């Protein structure tokens, strides 16, 4: 919400902080409730599906027409989880690069905000790719959002998270575009910082989801 433009006639803010940063933190606070509701729903409905496939247990006749394997694919998801974590690292480095543009130690590829922003985008995209792969394979194994309670709550929860990641990737792309257009410098720290906060939040949410949905039975 880049609405504020600096101007001498504006009184300083009471806290000395920028509006947008306060707003984004308030937003993140409310996102906590959003994901809490989604996660609780998933956990509440866990083990209540009347037909398979199920997350961790195989499903055999008569419950299911044919034998169905447990559906969650831990290796792939562990990989995507790792990628998302690393994207957070890239993100902080991008922020640092923007903040200290031109300072010693911020030269070269490793000091370039473009590189780190790009890296973050790539990793975010990779995560989404894994999720797309996961979803399609589930559909092939007979789990759609309509199949059972597990399907509905699982796809909705991870889908919502995926949507957040997508939004984050687009946001990062706009930043990268600006960076190419006019270069991001210390004065742009704030807008990058805000995007970073959002990105990291999406990451921590996944940390919770990975444990609660994928690992714990």
């Amino acid at each position, binding site marked *: 919400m880049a609405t504020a433009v600096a101007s001498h006639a504006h009184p300083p803010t009471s806290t000395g902080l920028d509006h947008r940063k306060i707003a984004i933190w308030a937003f993140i606070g*409310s996102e906590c*409730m959003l994901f809490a509701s*989604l996660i609780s729903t998933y956990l509440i409905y866990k083990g209540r599906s009347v037909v398979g496939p199920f997350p961790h247990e195989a499903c055999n006749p008569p419950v299911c027409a044919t034998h169905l394997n447990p559906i969650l694919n831990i290796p792939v998801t562990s990989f995507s989880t790792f990628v998302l974590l690393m994207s957070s690292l890239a993100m902080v480095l991008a922020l640092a690069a923007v903040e200290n543009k031109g300072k010693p130690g911020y030269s070269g590829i490793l000091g370039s905000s473009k590189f780190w922003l790009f890296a973050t985008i790539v990793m975010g995209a990779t995560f989404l790719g894994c999720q797309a792969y996961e979803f399609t394979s589930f559909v092939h194994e007979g789990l759609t959002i309509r199949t059972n309670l597990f399907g509905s709550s699982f796809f909705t929860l991870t889908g919502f998270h995926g949507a957040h990641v997508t939004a984050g990737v687009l946001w990062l792309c706009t930043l990268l575009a600006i960076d190419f257009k006019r270069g991001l410098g210390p004065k742009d720290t704030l807008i990058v910082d805000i995007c970073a906060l959002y990105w990291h939040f999406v990451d921590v949410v996944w940390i919770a989801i990975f444990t609660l949905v994928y690992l714990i039975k």
Partner: protein
Amino acid sequence: MATAAVGVPYTVADDYANSGLWSWLTTVDHKRIGVLYMYTALFWFGCGGLEAEIMRWQLKGPNGHVVTAEMFNQLFTMHGTTMIFLVVMPLSAAFFNFLIPLQIGARDVAFPRLNAFSYWVYLFGSLFMNTSWLVGQAPNGGWFGYAPLTALQYSPGLNIDFWMLGLQILGVSSLAAAFNFITTIINMRAPGMNLMRMPMFTWMAFIVQFLLVLAFPVITIALVFLQFDRFFGTNFYMMTAGADPLLWQHLFWIFGHPEVYILILPAFGLVSEILPTFSRKPIFGYPVMVYSGILIAFLGFGVWAHHMFAVGMGPIADSVFAVTTMLIAIPTGVKIFNWIFTMWGGNLRFTVAMKYAISLVALFTIGGISGVMHASPPADLQQTDTYFIVAHFHYVLVAGSMMGLSGGIYYYFPKITGRMLSEKIGNWQFWLTFIGVNLTFMPMHWSGLYGMPRRVYTYDAGQGWEIFNQMSTAGALIQALAAFVGLYNIIKSRKSGEIAGNDPWGAPSLEWSIPSPPPDYNFAVIPTVTSRYPLWDVKSPELTTDVPHSRVGDEHNTIAIGGKTVGSFQDSMAAGTPEGGLNPNARQASTKVSLKTAEQLGIPMPYPTIKPLFVALFMVLMFASLLLIHVNKETMGLVAVLTFATAMTFSLYLWLTSPLEPSH
């Protein structure tokens, strides 16, 4: 009284048309947006009230046949939804918008255009929901739409779709506004306006924003589940798939109970402004009032299941929620007593605003006490879903929220329009309302305890309920009369009301230091605040002597008027406050001094812009297009959704890339 330069039209910073329709469509001025909220909400109050009147007419006697069963179900569903989401919340939002920046000494909210967006979303959303009447399929699932009745299997029509999409849209509006106000209050307070000097209304508004931010995501998710179920065939509320209908109930009430405090706290805030002014006495126990407000909000998240005592949660859950619910009575009681002792030893002037405030104190207590009676599960099993509950929540909502807000209207109308509402007509409205409300809702306690269920379009003769229902209907008619009187008062006073001047009531807080209506920039110079009651420090120091809250010696560029230290208010008075006015009861017209415009003062004002309106419009259309899926026009629906989505994104892009205000 010199009408010369009074009731000055809003001066705007640029050469856009400064009045007329266009200026309203494009405004980003928090005051004008507040006014828009107010009149829209009043309009919906008329509609919600009309729905109520029809229900009352149907119920005036046994086996009534004014409307059909189906119609009645649509009536109470829309009545509840309208009154809560389209009347009380927006009316509170009207005051948030108009007052918060004025009370904290700011020139606008943090994100003026986002603010306009919130209003337009609310307007289009409310219109969308009510178009359901035109297609004859108004929502009919009750205002808390319990699953599985709302599932496609039991509600195949468009009724529920209108409801869930409408609520989803209104949620966007409330959330956007909430982030805006949180930022505004945290970040835009005038120098010296520290948290413990904020006016009580701003405090309550502040708390309400957090309730909104935390409560709305939950119902958003619950509604998303419902949408997926109805549009995409998921199983969240599908009984055959083993779904649990209590999931909806819990999610809804996790939102729903905080919601009821969202509805009452703004009214509490207004009362806490009105009582001190007309008692000529600072609020009693300011810090306690603040903390009790916070405590109410916090506890409010731990009591939701008291709406579900009958569903069989088991003795442990019942007991826990019973106790947490009862606890809320304590902080609320503290407020009640503090209000009474604000008046105690005061010097009470019974203006209409004051009367409304007093009757909130008197009547909310009734609703609160019946609330505590519900809080005892074994007893609640005999109360729940009867008219006893209806009595409870109308005492807290009508005699609480609505009376508080009405008081607020009488109190702030002068500041909003520059003219006083007629006290004479106002007294008629007040007494009619007071009698009407009690006559309507008091008997419902009896009809409830004598076994009358709620949400019944008809009841049989000989149950001993007739007399109570007749009284309720009579009372409802009196309320309608009162409402018309009030409407007349507004229309009349808007044109020919007495000129208000800056500070008609002798009130203590910042908003009264500037002209009425305020110039678009509010404060020519941002005041420096040195106390909780800045204007009283100036005009009647005897009220605030040895008040711990005012840090003496803190004043910047102090200037003396009539030998009294005026702090830095002289600056803000450059915007056109006349001298004198030391006697707060003497009404001061803003004479001679004509207002400087923003340019003359070199204050950058945000450009008016139509873009937020378009973003809102396209967003609502996007949601609305989902309806096509249910009249079996899937492809057409999806195309429409995508079209409007792109349109929305595009106008959002234009919005974000256009500057807020002339940069220097």
